[in-house]
């Protein structure tokens, strides 16, 4: 009896201990994340150094996969495509997103409603909206071609997804369509934290709208721009769904991204090792993007007089 009692107090004392209880509370999340996130991250890196195929465990081959991929024209093309896709799409998403955010920040009727419908492209499944784009880009029945024909701007239907450069720009356009709402709505949240008195003071000092934007809006918005663009670059660089649905990497591999190529090599082709190497090769680029934004962000925070953390 007394043994049980002391046992209970020991248990309840342990549960009152913040470290014990804290670790206990962390257990479910930590188990799932360690098992299905941290471990696969390591396993993926390891697989990249082996010649594993689906259904056959491989042996360590060192950097052979990377050496092969470095000499592989398709992989090089995919790297170029990924960088081009990320660069062009991110810049346009930023410009259009900022513009849309500034428009939505004006005093408008039905502002909340507008904000709600603007975000729609971002919340519906990308794979499904990509199917709509597939139909919009159809080589024979494209509505864009139809409209341009009627306006007399073109004389034959555009083969949006059949020519390398046309396909690149078509997929970029679809990516921009999906990404602009995210950039706009998050930047709008940033804009709403800027006090109107700054603008009143600036316009009393005779600042033009452009000067107000350049010297009031932009500096105050920089921290949130850095975060939003990091996410945007990250999502774009690792994009998969849109390309998989629209072109599967074609024509002539001209729209293959690193992610779609690694899927093709690893899952469709069965070479898990080679696919894992392609996926691992994306990590340095992602780290670079995160670090650039992190340090950019810190500098800005310091400039605005934020306390050292």
């Amino acid at each position, binding site marked *: 009896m007394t043994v049980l009692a002391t046992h209970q107090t020991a248990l309840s004392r342990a*549960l*009152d201990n913040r470290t014990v*209880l*804290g670790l206990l*509370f962390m*257990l*479910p*999340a*930590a188990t*799932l*994340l360690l098992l*299905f*996130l941290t471990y*696969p*991250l390591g396993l*993926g890196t390891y*697989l990249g150094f082996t010649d*594993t195929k689906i259904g056959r465990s491989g042996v360590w081959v060192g950097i052979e996969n990377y050496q092969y991929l470095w000499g592989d024209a398709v992989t090089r093309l995919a790297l170029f495509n990924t960088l081009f896709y990320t660069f062009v799409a991110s810049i346009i998403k930023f410009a259009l997103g900022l513009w*849309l955010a500034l*428009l939505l*920040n004006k*005093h*408008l009727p039905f502002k909340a409603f*507008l904000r*709600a*419908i*603007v*975000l*729609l492209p971002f*919340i*519906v*499944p*990308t794979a*499904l*909206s990509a*199917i*709509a784009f597939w*139909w*919009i880009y159809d080589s024979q*029945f494209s*509505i864009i071609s*139809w409209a341009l024909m009627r306006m007399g701007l073109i004389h034959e239907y555009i083969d949006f997804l059949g020519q390398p450069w046309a396909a690149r720009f078509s997929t970029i356009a679809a990516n921009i369509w999906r990404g*602009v709402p*995210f950039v706009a*709505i998050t930047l709008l*949240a940033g804009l709403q934290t800027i006090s*109107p008195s700054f603008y*009143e003071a600036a*316009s009393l000092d005779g600042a033009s709208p452009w000067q107000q934007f350049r010297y009031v809006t932009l500096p105050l918005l920089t921290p949130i721009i850095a*975060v939003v663009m990091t996410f945007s670059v990250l999502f774009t660089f*690792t994009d*998969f769904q849109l390309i998989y649905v629209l072109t599967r990497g074609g024509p002539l591999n001209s729209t293959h991204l690193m992610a779609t190529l690694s*899927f093709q090599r*690893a*899952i469709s082709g069965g070479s898990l090792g080679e696919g*894992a190497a392609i*996926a*691992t090769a*994306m*990590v340095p680029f992602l780290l670079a993007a995160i670090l650039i934004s992190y340090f950019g962000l810190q500098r800005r925070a310091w400039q605005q007089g934020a306390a050292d953390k």
Partner: protein
Amino acid sequence: MNDVKNSAAGAAAGNAEGKPELTDSMGMNYLVSLPKRVVSVYVPLFVFVVVLLFPFYWMAITALKPDAELLSREGNPFWVQNPTLAHIKKLLFETAYPDWLWNTIVVSVTSTFLSIFCSVLAAYSIERLRFRGSRYVGMSIFLAYLVPPSILFIPLAAMVYKLNLFDTRLALILTYPTFLIPFCTWLLMGYFKSIPIELEECALIDGASRLQILIRIILPLAVPGLISAGIFAFTLSWNEFIYALTFISSSEVKTVPVGVVTELVEGDVYHWGSLMAGALFGSLPVAILYSFFVEYYVSGLTGAVKE
């Protein structure tokens, strides 16, 4: 006269009664004349909205068009002359679409609840128990959020094979939390931080245990945060594509996005009507859920970015 009207329209009741309108950050907007405002604000905004919504309109109109109208270059393509429900009927009764819908619901709901459960405990632990090293755990949760699925799907596929989970819903239910838990934990940490610590201290003095505090005090106060996290997690798992594409191969276990993309496209003949109907019905549930909880969704989105 005209000028007065313009400036009144520009100020739009905000400053009319002399009370400052704080939500309108362009405080001197009423100085801009109406025609200029139309050109610089309403026209671009209209173009944005039309472009952003057109694909949805196009999905809906295509789903209702008979094949003859779909595959014709004559007539007005923006409207449907003889609407038909044939595509929708085909989708619902001749394909496995209802199965896919059911799978998507099961997987999304289960993984959402699993993730919220784990995230509530983890966020409370990191934010309030502040055990030794909790700051680093918080940091690593944020880093986990930045790991994209396109890097993880290959090793995860190898694991799913090994664990005999290939082609099961459980494979998705267990892997979706890898991107849901970091996001939800991060979001909930922000909400928990805003709850005054004094409330908790009072309860501790009154003899409440930590678990009682979490259930009776913290959770009721964090309901908006829980809704945000729940909506977000549900939408993210509904929209997930690459894991479902990799880990599932039988038609009856597929989710809607994967099913529509892989099963409705047969050979060279595309059934555009059914495809669009499938895309539309797959988008509607998240769109409807979103329309009820827009504010929560937006605050979740912007909160996660701002933190």
